[in-house]
């Protein structure tokens, strides 16, 4: 038995009892009864939880022994992590609930073990949904399953059935059911108006939902026979009751291939009073006509304008300047349409768009827009074919979707429109999920010929750099004495002939060949725009970027430049200087000049975001070069060891994704933590502008040789 008071002292230290008067005697006594290994394990976790919040750590210490009695280590860890994640997301009170309601956690984790979670399967389900035809629908979590015709709302966890696989199937069937509503006209029949005219709208709605579900099941049986079979499997596993016989007869009626949602509504309105709705199927969810109507109304207006605007753009592109049309014969009448019904899924119109009576190829976004409109209206009405220019509509309608990007504090969690990245918490030894809200911002360009002046200032160096980089470009070597090649290697041939004359064996290595190291590199430069670069470092960054771009242009490789800065995890900002596909032109030069010191230096998010960007580029070699003063630092605790460990971690992640990270630190003195910070990357320290492009050329050479 260890010394209880020593344990108590240890807990006091971890839990800062000195300042808080927490009573650690009880947890210390409990923990003292554990084996030594177990004791150390528990204390370690108390420390990790307390690093997030001491009160949370204290409650954890008070409950962990009981928890450990009933759960495996893995589960106890999941419990602690869940509490910390909850703290990150919702604050102390809900996190404490997780600790205190240990029994709930046990129950829910049991459900999760057999159930299926939306979050974990979201991507697969979403891709499945997008594979089904029609509008690109979104998926979101909600208590009950329903759709507003743009988003499918689904419960976060399904545990009706006994295995995760079966519960996954239930999701799949739910999705297909809701998708079918949007795809096969459930909301195209003026449901709300008809219901309003009924004596008992609530009952009529229920009846309609029942019968419409049966109709759509028949449609699914025709369109997705495999899925219909899976529906049967689910139904048997749940043990769903058979339909009442009256409904069986109705089902036969609405299963006909030509039965539409309007037919269903007509039947329902004529139904005798004594027909009762059947108990809803587990997969069917609820029907909210008013919610759908509001969504449709807004969309109709938006898409009508958008479609006309797109037509205008197409017209300008295709029939524009080279077309022989006169300005004032006007825009009307050039577009036409041809409608036809083909194939099986054919209660929908297929519309071909015509320009001057000839069918025209449509960009993907336009054909998607068109199918969305057809889903709502059943056709493309004639007035939609009139292109619209600026001035013909209120631009606010089109903008409604893109919230203004500077208004970052709006939205419930200050994260609307931001990308979320995780961050490594070394004390917790775990990631903080969705921790950093990252946004791309624009730099205000400054047209002051900064680039020109820099080139002049370093004209000697520029010449040298051009040569260095040009030499790399022409790294084509003539390979001699090859067995195959474009040219005969005369020296080799002469030797070989001489050998042959002397009766020796003739070599077959008689050709020469051009060896071209065709570089296929993509490089991102990540430039520190934090306040700590103010002064010579900022100037050095900008000047070296100008020199670099000048040099890189001679190579013709792809490169992109982004600045980064932050104020707390909720405002992590990447400033666009040059995208991969953008030319290095006067605009880009003005943006380099516009690189000005902003706020703090959170490095992890920038590395993670730019790594993700790099991975999307089609290149054989991907390189991330960071330019900073090497001091990760943000005011919400991102400093010292925390910032260093997260930055290090992000570099490691980049490495694992096959990216070559290089860190260039601009500073006058080397700091002793740099080797650790940049452990996973190659790094170098420079203290003068001219050194930077040369370092980069070294990096290039190392990569291509």
């Amino acid at each position: 038995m260890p010394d209880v008071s020593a344990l108590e002292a240890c807990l006091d230290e971890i839990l800062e009892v000195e300042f808080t008067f927490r009573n650690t005697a009880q947890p210390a006594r409990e923990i003292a009864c554990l084996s030594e290994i177990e004791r150390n394990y528990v204390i370690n976790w108390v420390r990790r939880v307390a690093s997030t919040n001491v009160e949370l750590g204290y409650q954890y210490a008070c409950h962990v022994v009981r928890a450990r009695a009933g759960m495996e280590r893995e589960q106890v860890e999941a419990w602690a992590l869940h509490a910390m994640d909850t703290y990150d997301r919702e604050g102390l009170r809900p996190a404490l609930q997780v600790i205190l309601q240990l029994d709930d956690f046990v129950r829910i984790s049991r459900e999760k073990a057999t159930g299926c979670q939306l979050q974990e399967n979201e991507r697969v389900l979403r891709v499945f949904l997008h594979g089904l035809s029609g509008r690109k629908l979104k998926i979101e979590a909600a208590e009950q399953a329903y759709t507003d015709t743009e988003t499918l709302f689904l419960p976060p966890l399904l545990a009706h059935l006994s295995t995760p696989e079966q519960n996954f199937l239930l999701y799949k069937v739910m999705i297909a059911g809701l998708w079918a509503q949007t795809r096969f006209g459930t909301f195209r029949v003026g449901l709300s108006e008809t219901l309003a005219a009924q004596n008992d709208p609530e009952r009529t709605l229920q009846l309609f939902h029942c019968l419409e579900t049966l109709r759509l099941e028949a449609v699914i049986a025709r369109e997705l026979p495999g899925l219909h079979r899976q529906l049967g499997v689910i139904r048997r596993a749940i043990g769903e009751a058979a339909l009442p016989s009256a409904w069986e007869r109705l089902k036969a009626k609405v299963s006909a291939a030509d039965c539409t949602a309007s037919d269903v509504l007509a039947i329902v309105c004529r139904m005798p009073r004594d027909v009762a709705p059947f108990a809803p199927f587990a997969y069917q969810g609820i029907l909210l006509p008013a919610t759908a109507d509001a969504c449709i109304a807004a969309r109709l207006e938006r898409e009508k304008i958008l479609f006309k605007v797109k037509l205008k753009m197409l017209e300008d592109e295709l029939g524009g300047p080279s077309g022989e049309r006169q300005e004032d014969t006007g825009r009307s009448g050039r577009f036409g349409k041809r409608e036809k019904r083909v194939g099986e899924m054919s209660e929908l119109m297929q519309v071909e768009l015509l320009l001057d009576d000839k069918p025209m190829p449509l960009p993907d976004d336009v054909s998607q827009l068109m199918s969305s409109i057809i889903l709502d209206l059943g056709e493309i009405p004639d007035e939609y074919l009139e292109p619209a220019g600026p001035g013909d509509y209120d631009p606010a309608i089109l903008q409604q979707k893109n919230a203004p990007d500077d208004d970052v504090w709006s939205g419930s969690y200050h994260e609307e429109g931001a990308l979320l990245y995780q961050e490594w918490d070394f004390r917790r030894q775990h990631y903080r999920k969705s921790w950093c809200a990252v946004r791309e911002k624009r730099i205000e360009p400054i047209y002051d010929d900064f680039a020109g002046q820099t080139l002049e200032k370093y004209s000697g160096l520029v010449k040298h750099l051009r040569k260095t980089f040009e030499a790399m470009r022409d790294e084509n070597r003539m390979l001699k004495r090859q067995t195959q090649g474009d040219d005969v290697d005369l020296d080799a041939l002469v030797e070989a002939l001489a050998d042959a004359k002397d009766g020796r064996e003739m070599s077959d290595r008689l050709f020469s060949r051009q060896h071209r190291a065709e570089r296929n590199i993509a490089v991102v430069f990540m430039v520190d725009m934090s306040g700590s670069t103010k002064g010579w470092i900022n100037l050095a960054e900008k000047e070296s970027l100008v020199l670099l771009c000048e040099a890189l242009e001679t190579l013709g490789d792809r490169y992109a430049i982004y600045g980064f800065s932050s104020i707390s995890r909720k405002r992590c900002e990447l400033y666009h200087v040059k995208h991969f596909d953008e030319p290095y032109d006067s605009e880009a030069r003005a943006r380099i000049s516009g690189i000005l010191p902003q706020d703090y230096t959170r490095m992890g998010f920038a590395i993670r975001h730019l790594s993700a960007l790099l991975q999307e580029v089609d290149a054989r070699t991907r390189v991330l070069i960071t330019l900073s003063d090497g001091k990760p630092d943000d005011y919400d605790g991102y400093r010292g060891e925390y910032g260093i460990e997260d930055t290090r971690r992000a570099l490691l992640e980049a490495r694992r994704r096959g990216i070559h990270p290089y860190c260039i630190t601009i500073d006058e003195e080397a700091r002793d933590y740099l080797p650790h910070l940049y452990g996973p990357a190659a790094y170098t320290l420079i203290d003068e502008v001219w050194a930077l492009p040369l370092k980069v050329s070294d990096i290039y050479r190392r990569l291509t040789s």
Partner: protein
Amino acid sequence: MQPKIVKLDEYLVVDEPFYQAGGDEVEIFESSYRNGLPVLLKGPTGCGKTRFMEYMAWRLQRPLITVSCHDDLTASDLVGRYLIKGGETTWVDGPLTQAVRSGGICYLDEIVEARKDTMVVIHPLADDRRVLPMEKLGMLIEAPPEFCLAISYNPGYQSVLKDLKQSTRQRFVALEFDYPKPDLEAAIVARESGLDRERAELLVRFAAMTRNLKGSGLEEGASTRLLVHAAKLIAAGVAPVSACRSAIAQALTDDHEMLAAVNELSSAIF
């Protein structure tokens, strides 16, 4: 030294290939051919471009020489090079030269994959000069009227590196290919694989689903070629969902979640 002339009978397409036309491509190709204009076939992989060329070669009764371009293909690979035998150097024509000399059809598949210097060789052939410069031999050969140059190009994978230059594309009559309309595609799949029409139709429906995913996780949807592969497996007794998995899904992606999702789609169909 005397250039060796290659016999081209082996490149003649003897039996009529099965080609299901989707529009007026056959007529347009024929008139381009008669007018000595080069042709560019645009379209995703596996939608019938190669088959179309075989069919046209058969119709026009000209030898067809196909070169699949790749990133090591140089101008010499097309034009020809010296070989050394027993101390003698001999010139050997490359496929493009063979096609020019014999008045055949040269089809350069996936032209953007080739090295940029190969374009320099085809440009003079693709305008009204219709000549092939043979730098190594120091001569120009004039293409006979029967010669025809066709190239293909997949606009789907546009990237800065792999785009067809304006200076190239503006020399060609362009034919746009796409996956055939559903009923035609089902007919093609059934005919090519021997699978019954009903299941061929289901496969085509599955293909449409994967094509909906272009841009949301897949670079390309299932091509007609992949459908034919899957259909052959199914006709040989493989369960449809497994056939779709092996012959289609695995060919489209390595991403586990995408594979899972594509499998969910095929199991929703079959």
